[in-house]
C-alpha cells in the first residue's frame, strides 16, 4: 500500500454553522458553530473512523461531505471533483457516487415501500433499468447483503433491525458508489447482529473497492474497521492517525480521556481513569482558544487564548495541543 496515493476525499477548512432560535415567534437567533475549519483526507479504498461525543459535529461533517447540509466555507473534493461548487445535473450525477447509511435502519426505510421497491428506487431514478432486468438487479443486490427472494415483498416493519440495515446497505450500493458515509451503522443493533453487519461492511469494501467514512461513538467498532482515525471535539478534529498509534499512544488530552472512559472487557485490568469534570461547552458559545480547555486536566494559560495548530507527531499522526510544542 502506498501512502502517497491521492485521497478519494479531501476536506479543507470546512466550516458549518446552524441558525437556531428566532423563527415564527421572533426572538434572537443564535449561531451554532457545528464545524470549525476541518481538514481531512480519506484515502481511497480505506475506512476513516470519526469518533467523538454527541453534538461534536461528526454527523454534520458526514452530511456536509454529501451536500446534505450547506457549509459556510471551505472545500470538499471527492474523486477530484469540487463538491461544493456543483449544482443541478452535475450534482445529481455526483450523488450516484456517494451514499449514506443511517443509524436507525427501520426509521430510514419508508414504511410504505416493500423491500423490492426500497432497493429499486435509486435504480429507477438514475438508470433506465425497468421490468425483469430491474428485478434481477434488485435480487442481486439483496443477495450481496445476505438476503434472498423471500424478503423482497416484505415491509420494513416485518424485518429485524439487522435485516433492515442489510436492506439499507443494498439500497446504498445500488448505483455502484465509490464513497459511503456510515453514520453509526450498528448503534441500534444488538452485539451479535452488530458483528454480522460489521463483517458484511468489511467484505463489501474489499469486493467493490469502497471508501468509507465511519461515524461512531464506539471506539472498539471504529478500531476494528478503520485504517485511519479522527477524534472530534466541539466541531474540530483534535487528533488524527492510524488506530494503532491513537489507541497505543494518544497524544491529545481529550483522546486520552475518551479512551480511559471507555469500558473494557477485562475486570482485572487496572487502569488510570481520567474522569473529565464538567460538560461539553455549547457550540453556540464556543470557548476561546483550544475548544477543550474548559475541561482539560492539563490546561495551561495559553490554551485559554490561542487555539493550538496541528502538530505532527509521526508521518501519519498529528494532534492539536500546546503540550506537544512545549
Amino acid at each position: 500500500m502506498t501512502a502517497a496515493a491521492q485521497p478519494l476525499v479531501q476536506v479543507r477548512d470546512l466550516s458549518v454553522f446552524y441558525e437556531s432560535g428566532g423563527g415564527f415567534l421572533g426572538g434572537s437567533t443564535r449561531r451554532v458553530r457545528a464545524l470549525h475549519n476541518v481538514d481531512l483526507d480519506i484515502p481511497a479504498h480505506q475506512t476513516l473512523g470519526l469518533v467523538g461525543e454527541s453534538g461534536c459535529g461528526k454527523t454534520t461533517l458526514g452530511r456536509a461531505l454529501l451536500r446534505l447540509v450547506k457549509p459556510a466555507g471551505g472545500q470538499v473534493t471527492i474523486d477530484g471533483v469540487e463538491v461544493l461548487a456543483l449544482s443541478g445535473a452535475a450534482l445529481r450525477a455526483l450523488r450516484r457516487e456517494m451514499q449514506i447509511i443511517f443509524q436507525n435502519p427501520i426509521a430510514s426505510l419508508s414504511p410504505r415501500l416493500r423491500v423490492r421497491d426500497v432497493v429499486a428506487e435509486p435504480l429507477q431514478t438514475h438508470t433506465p433499468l425497468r421490468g425483469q432486468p430491474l428485478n434481477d438487479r434488485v435480487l442481486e443486490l439483496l443477495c450481496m447483503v445476505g438476503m434472498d427472494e423471500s424478503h423482497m415483498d416484505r415491509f420494513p416493519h416485518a424485518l429485524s433491525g439487522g435485516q433492515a440495515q442489510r436492506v439499507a446497505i443494498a439500497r446504498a450500493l445500488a448505483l455502484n458508489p465509490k464513497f459511503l458515509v456510515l453514520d453509526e451503522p450498528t448503534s441500534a443493533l444488538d452485539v451479535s447482529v452488530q458483528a454480522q453487519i460489521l463483517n458484511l461492511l468489511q467484505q463489501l469494501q474489499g469486493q467493490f473497492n469502497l471508501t468509507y467514512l465511519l461515524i461512531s461513538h464506539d471506539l472498539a467498532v471504529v478500531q476494528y474497521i478503520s485504517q485511519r482515525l479522527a477524534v472530534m471535539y466541539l466541531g474540530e478534529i483534535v487528533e488524527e492517525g492510524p488506530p494503532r498509534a491513537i489507541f497505543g499512544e494518544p497524544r491529545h488530552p481529550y483522546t486520552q480521556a475518551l479512551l480511559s472512559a471507555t469500558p473494557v472487557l477485562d475486570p482485572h485490568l487496572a487502569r488510570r481513569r481520567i474522569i473529565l469534570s464538567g460538560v461539553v461547552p455549547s457550540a453556540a458559545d464556543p470557548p476561546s482558544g483550544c475548544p477543550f480547555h474548559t475541561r482539560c486536566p492539563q490546561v495551561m494559560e495559553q490554551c485559554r487564548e490561542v487555539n493550538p495548530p496541528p502538530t505532527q507527531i509521526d508521518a501519519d499522526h498529528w494532534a492539536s495541543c500546546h503540550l506537544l510544542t512545549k
Partner: protein
Amino acid sequence: MSAPLLVVEDLHVEFPDETGMVHALRGVSLTLDRGEVLGLVGETGCGKSVTGLSILGLVPQPGRIKSGRILLDGQDLTALDEGDLRKLRGRNIGMIFQDPVTSLNPVFTNGRQVLNVIERHLHLGRAAARQRALELFVSVGLPDPEAILEGYPHQLSGGMQQRVMIAMALAAGPELIIADEPTTAVDVTIQAQILDLLLKLQRERGIAILLITHNLGVVAETCHRVAVLYAGRVVEESPVGEFFKEPRHPYSQGLLHSLPRLNQAADWLTPIPGNVPSGHEDLPGCAFAARCEYATDRCWQNQPPMYAAGAARRVACFLAEEAGW
C-alpha cells in the same frame, strides 16, 4: 453468610397480544446479596427490563406475573397488594431509568422531585426535608445544589439530570437500587462519571445494585457478579472475573466473541448465527439450541437445569454435566 437481600425464583411473566401470548420471562432465577452489584445483561427483548419491573411490581398491563416468587428480605413481593408495593417502592427499592428526560417531571423543580420521595416515605419537617434534599444533591455531585434545587430538569444536561434521578433513588435510603441502563443515554465521558458515582454510593452506603445493561464493558468495570439472560431465562450466573476470563455458556461465549475489542486487532468478528427466538414460541428445550454449535437432541427436548460450575458459578447447559465443569 447471611441470607441474600433479593431472591428471584422461577419467575414467569407473560403479555397477551393479538396473536397469542408473549413469554417475556420463562423462569428467571437469581440472587443478590446485600451491598452487591449484580449486572443483568442480555440483548434486546431478553427480559432484562421486565425482570426489573417485576421486582418493582410495575409489570405494565395487560402483562402479569404468571408464577414464581420475588423475595426481598424474605418477604414475597408477588403477594403484596398495590398499597403495600407503593410503600416499598422508593422506601426499600430505588429506581433509576435509562432516560432522565422522560423520567423526571418537567413541571416540577428538581428539588420538588426529590422532596416528593422524602415526604412520602420519611416523616420530616419542611426544613429537615429540604436539608436532606440539599445533602443528597451534594452527595451525587451536583454543582451549586441550592440553585439546582430551585431549577427545572430542562435546564440541566443529561448527565446532571441522571444525577437528580440518582438523588431521587437514594432519597428514602433504600437497600436496593434497580438501575435500568442508567448510562445508555449519555456519552462515555459522562458514563464514566455516573458509574463512578454509583460505585461510590454503593461503597459508602452499602446499597445493593441490580445493574441492567446491554454493555458488557460496563459490567466488567462495575459489577461483582453477572447474570446473563437469554430469551427470558438466566443461562449463566458468575463472578465477573471468571466470566470474562472463561465464559461457560455457549451464548455467553458467543456474545464475548462477537464484540470488537480495543487494543486487540482482529480481522474478523465471529457473530452468533441466526436470530433470537420469538416470545411467542414454545421452547421445551434450551432456548439457545437453534443457534448453538454444540446442540444435541437432548438440548431441543429438555430444558437444561442450572448446574453448579465451581464454587460461585451456575450455568444452564448440559455441557456442564458432560464436560464436568
